């Protein structure tokens, strides 16, 4: 008996190690092992909080108090509050204007960057800079540029004679504040549009332009019938990406206007923070955040149709 147990133990030790390494060599084992850290992390810190957000949104959760289910009352209350209705409208104005401007300016800038240029690297570096610097900090710079007393924007406008003294109080007036927030978002998002569209432009075969030119197409016709159709895929992806991140913008509004004046620049994320953390009504805050979800769904659905097609 004793001898045979020892025999088995001796025989098993190397075979266990061999079996583990054999398992690690098999794709159906190694795959799940390699994916599991990412999966655990995302289940614990993305999927689970998302379920909590769903629960909070149908409860009267308040910081430091037990909560009860109250059905859809948060959503109904929100629709009855002026601040939320204003925010809802702001989100579409902000996102629509910023994405449209970034698209048009992004295509223009990409076309310019695609030309023969001196100092190509330096120019690209300068164009990409706003995207690299921490948004919260660069927005501080814009905050100073829009300052009511010392605004360099107004100083320049007055010096050039395109503004009437004293110039607009950018962050204190409703429409100007929204314009300011949109301008900073365009400034920050333009590099992503320009550089990605440029990559799309470079990928278009030069022969197509030569062929179009031989057929007598001018620059406008070449752009319209060659460039734009071939850029459609890239443009769709860039716009979808930008839509979700513009819609959920937080940093710029938080630093520049805090949602003011009188909620005229609040977006879902900033209002959610104000309601959920500053006044403690987490349930209502979570309900506000969830308004980002339908947009996310649409973008994900569209992205999967475009991106999956390319990747797999």
């Amino acid at each position, binding site marked *: 008996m004793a001898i045979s147990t020892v025999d088995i133990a001796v025989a098993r030790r190397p075979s266990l190690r061999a079996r583990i390494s054999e398992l690690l060599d098999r794709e159906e084992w190694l795959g799940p092992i390699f*994916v599991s850290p990412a999966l655990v992390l995302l289940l614990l810190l993305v999927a689970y909080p998302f379920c909590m957000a769903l629960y909070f949104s149908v409860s009267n959760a308040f910081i430091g108090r037990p909560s009860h289910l109250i059905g859809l009352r948060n959503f109904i209350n929100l629709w009855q509050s002026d601040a939320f209705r204003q925010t809802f409208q702001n989100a579409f104005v902000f996102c629509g204007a910023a994405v449209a401007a970034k698209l048009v300016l992004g295509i223009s800038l990409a076309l310019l960057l695609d030309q023969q240029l001196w100092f190509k690297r330096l120019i690209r*570096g300068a164009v990409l800079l706003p995207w690299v610097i921490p948004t919260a900090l660069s927005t501080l710079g814009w905050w100073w540029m829009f300052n009511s007393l010392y605004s360099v924007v107004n100083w320049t406008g007055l010096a050039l004679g395109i503004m009437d003294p004293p110039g607009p109080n950018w962050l204190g007036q409703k429409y100007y504040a929204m314009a300011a927030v949109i301008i900073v978002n365009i400034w920050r998002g333009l590099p992503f549009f320009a550089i990605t569209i440029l990559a799309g432009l470079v990928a278009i075969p030069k022969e197509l332009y030569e062929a179009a030119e031989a057929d007598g197409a001018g620059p406008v016709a070449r752009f319209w019938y060659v460039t734009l159709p071939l850029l459609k895929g890239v443009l769709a992806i860039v716009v979808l990406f930008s839509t979700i991140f513009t819609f959920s913008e937080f940093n710029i509004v938080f630093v520049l206007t805090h949602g003011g004046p009188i909620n005229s620049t609040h977006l879902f994320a900033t209002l959610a*923070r104000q309601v959920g953390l500053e006044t403690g009504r987490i349930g209502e805050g979570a309900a506000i955040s969830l308004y980002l979800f339908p947009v*996310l769904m649409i973008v994900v659905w569209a992205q999967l149709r475009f991106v999956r097609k390319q990747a797999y």
Partner: protein
Amino acid sequence: MNRRKLTHKILMHVLLVPFLVFAVFPFYHMTLTSLKQNKELYDRTANPLVIRQGPTIDHYTKLLWDTSFLVWTKNSLLVTVLATTLSLVIGTVAAYALARLKFFAVGSLGTAIFVTYLVPTSLLFLPLAQVVNWLGLGDSKWALVVTYPTFLVPFCTWLLMGYFRTVPKEVEECAMVDGATRIQALWRIVLPITVPGLVCAALFAFTLSWNEFIYALTFTSSSEQITASVGVTSELIRGDIYYWGSLMAGAVLASVPIVVLYVFFLDYYVSGLTAGAIK
């Protein structure tokens, strides 16, 4: 070069000027403000575009010695380095598995990672704050080390999947025929080939976590725990009196690490930016 071509080239540069001014001016103005003496800074008749009365580093010395700026920067650095390393390791193995191996539900896992890549941080910060409290990490920079990978891992995975797909399968198979295990083949053969991808992912992860704001603002609040961007935007603004010089000095200094990386690795940023969206 003929005349028409040269005119065209010059015209293109002229058209680029407004874009370049728009992109760079805020940084110019921030730096300028941080170097101005107060009496010129708050003189409304002075030209704000230049320094006339001599530069000063007073705002910088004030920032470094009278505030906790150095502590915040140290926190930023710690959080960023740890979160980047963690995410890169988790992301690399996940990306390799998703791009190369055949196993149960590999396709839907890849999709799930991509979907989380699109989830904006501002959607989940409220419930995540509760999770952070339950983990006992309320008002601690460690909360950021744990939560930043939620957006860094999907990004790194997605980016690296693209790079792993470009490595020919044969390279790996050769090594395995010669007796290497799959892990050895990955470590010795595949990873060295994908170094550009790893550098790119590391740079982006570093930049994204250095720039992160909403989680840092929500999960940390005391001066010993906050990161540089939160410190500069919240602690340097007290009441209604703004110290614009120091504020701009803080914004400039806290951007320096990223700008340094950026200057050295510009091409990686360009390729990563496009790969992240297109691949």
